[in-house]
C-alpha cells in the first residue's frame, strides 16, 4: 500500500460514518460491474402472475406492475447511476477547469468568460437542464450533458478562485520571473495544487448529479423509460404508491444512500483541505 493511499484511508479512520460511506461506494461499484452475475433475474424479465407482489423470498424487494424483480432492477440501476455520476463529473471538470484557469491567468479573456458563467448561473439549474434536454433530445448522454452544464459553472468558479490564489504564490512568481512558460506553470504548479479542491468538488458534483438525474427521470425527461434507472423506477411507481409502497422505497433508498455517502466522503476530504481553499467549497453548492 502506498503512503498516499494510507494517509487517505487514515482520514476516514477518524470518522467511522464516512468510512461506512466509502465502503458503500466501493460496494456499489462492485455491484454495478457484476450486476449480471449478482442479480437473480434479468431486469426486463416479466412475470405477469407475480404483478405487484410484496417482498418475499423469491423477490426480495417485491415486483413491479409488469412482475419484474425490483431487486434485480435496483442492482442494474446502479450502473446508470455511476455512468451519470462519472459522466457529469468528467464533463464538469473537462470544461470548467480550462475555463477557470484561462480566466484567472488571462484577465482580459477572463472578464468575458466569467461574465458568461455569471449569466449561466442566473438560470435556475433544473430549468437550464430541462431546456437543454428539450433542444438536444431525450437520451442518457444528453442527460449527462444537461446536468454537466449546471456544474460547469461552479467548477469554473472554483478553479478560477483557486488559480487566482495560486498565481500569487511565491513559487509561481519565481517560476514566472525565471521565464517559465504559462503552459509549464499550469502543468507543474497549478494543476497539481488543484487536485485536492477538485476532488472535493467532484464528490459533491457526483452526489448532486444523482439527485438531478433522478429529478429529470421523474419528470419523464431523463433516461429513456425502458432503462432501469432508479429515477425511472420511482416515476413508474408513483401511481402504485398506496398499493405497492415497496416500489417507492428501494430505488429511492439507493439514491439517498449513494448521494449521502458521496457527501460524507466529500465532507471528510474538505475538512483536510488547505484552509485557503476550503471556503471556496463552502455551503453554497448549487443544487
Amino acid at each position, binding site marked *: 500500500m502506498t503512503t498516499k493511499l494510507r494517509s487517505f484511508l487514515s482520514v476516514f479512520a477518524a470518522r467511522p460514518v464516512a468510512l461506512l460511506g466509502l465502503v458503500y461506494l466501493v460496494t456499489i461499484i462492485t455491484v454495478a460491474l457484476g450486476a449480471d452475475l449478482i442479480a437473480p433475474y434479468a431486469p426486463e424479465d416479466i412475470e405477469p402472475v407475480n404483478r405487484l407482489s410484496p417482498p418475499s423470498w423469491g423477490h426480495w424487494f417485491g415486483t413491479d406492475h409488469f412482475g419484474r424483480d425490483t431487486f434485480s432492477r435496483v442492482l442494474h440501476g446502479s450502473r446508470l447511476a455511476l455512468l451519470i455520476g462519472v459522466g457529469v463529473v468528467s464533463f464538469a471538470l473537462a470544461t470548467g477547469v480550462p475555463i477557470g484557469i484561462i480566466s484567472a491567468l488571462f484577465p482580459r479573456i477572463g472578464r468575458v468568460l466569467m461574465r458568461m458563467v455569471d449569466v449561466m448561473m442566473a438560470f435556475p439549474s433544473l430549468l437550464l437542464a430541462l*431546456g437543454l434536454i428539450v433542444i438536444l433530445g431525450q437520451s442518457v448522454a444528453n442527460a449527462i450533458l444537461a446536468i454537466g452544464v449546471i456544474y460547469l459553472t461552479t467548477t469554473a468558479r472554483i478553479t478560477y478562485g483557486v488559480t487566482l490564489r495560486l498565481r500569487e504564490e511565491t513559487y509561481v512568481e519565481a517560476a514566472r520571473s525565471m521565464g517559465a512558460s504559462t503552459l509549464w506553470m499550469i502543468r507543474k504548479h497549478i494543476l497539481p495544487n488543484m487536485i485536492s479542491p477538485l476532488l472535493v468538488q467532484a464528490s459533491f458534483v457526483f452526489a448532486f448529479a444523482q439527485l438531478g438525474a433522478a429529478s429529470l427521470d421523474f419528470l419523464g425527461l431523463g433516461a429513456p423509460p425502458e432503462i432501469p434507472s432508479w429515477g425511472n423506477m420511482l416515476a413508474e411507481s408513483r401511481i402504485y404508491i398506496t398499493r405497492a409502497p415497496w416500489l417507492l422505497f428501494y430505488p429511492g433508498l439507493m439514491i439517498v444512500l449513494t448521494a449521502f455517502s458521496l457527501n460524507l466522503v466529500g465532507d471528510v476530504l474538505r475538512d483536510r483541505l488547505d484552509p485557503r481553499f476550503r471556503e471556496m467549497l463552502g*455551503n453554497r453548492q448549487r443544487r
Partner: protein
Amino acid sequence: MLAYVLKRTGAAIATLVAASIVIFIFIHLIPGDPIYVMLGDEATPEQVEALRTRLGLDRPLYVQYFYWAGNVLQGDLGTSIFFQEPVTVIIRDGAETSLLLACVTMVWIVALGVPVGVLAAIRQGTWVDQGLSGIAMLLASIPTFWVGLYLILIFAAHLGWLPSSGYPSIFEDGGLSNLRYLLLPSLTLAAPNAALILRLTRASMLDVAKEDYVRTARSKGIRPYRVVVRHILRNALLAVVSAFGFTFAALISEAVVTETVFALPGIGRMVVQSILRRDYPVIQGVILVIVCLYLVINLLVDISYRYLDPRVDLE
C-alpha cells in the same frame, strides 16, 4: 454606497440582457415547428406560411429578438400558442401558487435551519452537533420528489389529514384555510434547503466565534448567552442572509419538481408542460421572469449585505 448600488444594478441589467438573448436563442434551437403544433399536421403549406408571416416567424432572428425585447419592455410577453391567452395572464395565474409556496417554504427554512444551526454550533463537537449535522447532510441527499411522495403516502393517503394535490386560490373559496394545500409541498421543498441553511449557519457561527472581538467580549466577563446572541449570532447571520438569495433561486428551480408531484397550478409546472407542448412564448416569458426575479433578489441581498456590513469592500 450610491456608486456601489449603481454599479451592481448596472451589472444586473447587463446580465439580464445577456440572459434574455440566451433564452431567445435557446428557444429557437428547440426542434419542432410551433406552427405545426398550432395548426396540426393537416395544415396546407399556404396556411402555414400565412401564420408564419402573421407571427413574424419568417423574419431574421435578430429582428425577431428586438421585436420581442421591445414588447417585453412594454410589459407584453406575447401570447400563449396553447391557451391563446397573454403570457402575462398565465404567469399571473401561476404566480400566486408559486410565490406563496416559496414564501411558506422560506418560513420553514428560516424557522428550522437557523435555530438548529445555532444549536449545532453552540454544541460543537458533541453528539448533538454530530447528530444534527448528520441529519442535515442526509436531508440534502434526498431527492425532493421522494420526500413529497412519502409525505403524500403518510399524511394524505394513510392518515387523511392533508390534501395530496392541487391548490385552490386563497382569494376564492376557502380563504386562508387553503394554505393547508401548501403544507406538504412546502415541507418537501424546505427539507434540503433548510439543511443547507443549517450547515451554513453552523459554519458561519463557528467562523465568527474565532474573531478577536468575541474573545475580547468573553474576557471582559460578558455572560456566554449574551456573547452568543449579541456578538456571534448577529454577525454570523450576515452570511446566512446573503445565502437566502441563492436559496430562493433554488426554490424556484426545485419547485418545478415539487409542483409536479403535488399537481400545483404554479409557474414551475407550467414551464414543464409548456416545454412538452412547445409553447415558445410561455417558456420564454416564464424563464425570463424567473431569471429577472433571481437577479433582483440577488441585487437586493448584495446591497443589504453591504449596508449591514460596511467592512465588505466595494468589489
